[in-house]
């Protein structure tokens, strides 16, 4: 697995360095569909883009999207990312030093379908008030690999989290893990007070600082009550 990840990363870095100067701009919706095709890959997303609630994001196998420093992919509509083992879909920072913002799924349009996707070098990828399955998705070298919030039904099937700072965080909701590896990150799984992870946890191991942490347990140990999310919401309101 380590070799596969390293090969992927080298391939991504090579593509990134070749394609920063040229690439197809991230497309707009046409007839309710934002379609990214392998023949036009790589695509470049310089800043933020919203896939609206009435639109569907469809990405073909073998597509690479290079993300600029301010890139943020927000998806409010349906999602179908259909990579294959041989031809994964890749979201990567165009600049190997600076993080891009991340992808954010906030969709009530129905379950998302994401297969064989590699997400690299993002600050934070989030799933908010959405449900669906991520299958064979690799989160590599992100600050927050995946942040699940207020989503009661997210399944991780044979996904891999490696070299992220915070690999998988569940703030509120339930994640089901099936054969998902969370290894060689700084922190593995972080469960905030309202977050749950069901299924396999035996592949959450060999992380530097901790494999599984629970905010509720941390608060209890330190005799504190205020969750991080509460502080951040107070700040955002003022």
């Amino acid at each position: 697995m380590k070799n596969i990840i390293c090969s992927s990363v080298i391939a991504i870095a090579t593509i990134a360095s070749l394609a920063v100067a040229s690439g197809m701009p991230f497309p707009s919706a046409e007839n309710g569909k934002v379609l990214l095709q392998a023949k036009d890959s790589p695509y470049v997303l310089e800043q933020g883009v919203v896939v609206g609630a009435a639109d569907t994001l469809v990405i073909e196998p073998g597509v690479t999207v290079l993300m600029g420093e301010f890139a943020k992919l927000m998806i409010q509509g349906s999602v179908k990312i259909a990579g294959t083992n041989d031809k994964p879909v890749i979201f990567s920072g165009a600049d190997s030093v600076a993080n891009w913002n991340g992808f954010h799924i906030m969709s009530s349009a129905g379950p998302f379908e994401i297969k064989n996707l590699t997400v690299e070098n993002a600050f934070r990828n989030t799933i908010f008030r959405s449900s669906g399955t991520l299958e064979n998705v690799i989160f590599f070298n992100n600050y927050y690999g995946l942040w699940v919030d207020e989503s009661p039904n997210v399944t991780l099937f044979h996904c891999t989290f490696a070299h992220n700072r915070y690999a998988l965080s569940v703030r509120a909701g339930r994640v089901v893990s099936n054969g998902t590896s969370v290894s060689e990150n700084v922190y593995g799984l972080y469960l905030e007070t309202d977050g749950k992870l069901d299924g396999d946890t035996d592949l959450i191991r060999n992380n530097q600082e901790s494999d599984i942490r629970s905010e509720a347990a941390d608060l209890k140990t330190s005799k504190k009550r205020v969750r991080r999310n509460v502080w951040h919401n107070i700040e955002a309101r003022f």
Partner: protein
Amino acid sequence: MNFTKFSAISALSIALFCLCSCERNEIHLAFNTQTVSPQSFVLESTLNASLPGDSANEPESMRTHVSIRSTMSLLMSYDDGSGRFEMKIDSVDYTSDKRSVDEFRNIEKYLSIQNFQFKLDHDGVITDPNIENALDMPSEDELNLIPLFLKAQPLLPEKPVKLGETWERQMPIFGKGNSTTTVYKTFTLMDVYLQDGVRMAKIHMGMKYLELPDTTSNLQLKSNDYVIGDGDVLFDVTHGTLSSAEMNIVAKLDVFDLVAGDTLPSMNVNQKITLRNIQ
């Protein structure tokens, strides 16, 4: 040439109006929304929030600070006396003891592209503010600069006022989604003086509003009384521009966590906002 003539006539009209008003011991306060040149501002906000300890729990607190340099430019002046402006963010410095350094840098990065446009009336009312580069539906804990500017913004009287005279105005402050908070502001003209040939007005600014829970969120903040603000404004009457504004805000909040079924009562929040024109 026409524009120059128009500017000169406008400036003369304002000067004559001020003169006439001053002769009656009154002063007319108005923003220059027609010919003002670009202004540079420093906006700072320091936020302290705390929860007292009890027999079972330790006291807890948060401190955050944000400092923003920005440039405000007139994009278009309208016949009704208002103008459309752009606030361009030049630099952001942010810290919080509840976030990591990597998070500071990420927040600085996305705040630095929060350039926004708004319509400004001559009495200071700001309408139609919108962020140029922001995406719809920012997440609940993302920061938004527009409310900080709006809290520091004075609203000027619709007619000339005398020293000691008080006026009241209200303004909406737009939050996440469609939520709007109505802020009530009270002003008193405290002093008028000349500084380096420029006529300055010192105005006391009081503010109050209710923090109402966002019903779309599972984490609801509610003030059990008015959130109170108190501060001063220095207004450059000659040029029709804000020179500085300072606002100290005090609140007590109850926090309802609907998912966890938990309530945190009486959290203390203190915020100091300063806005300085550094041109």
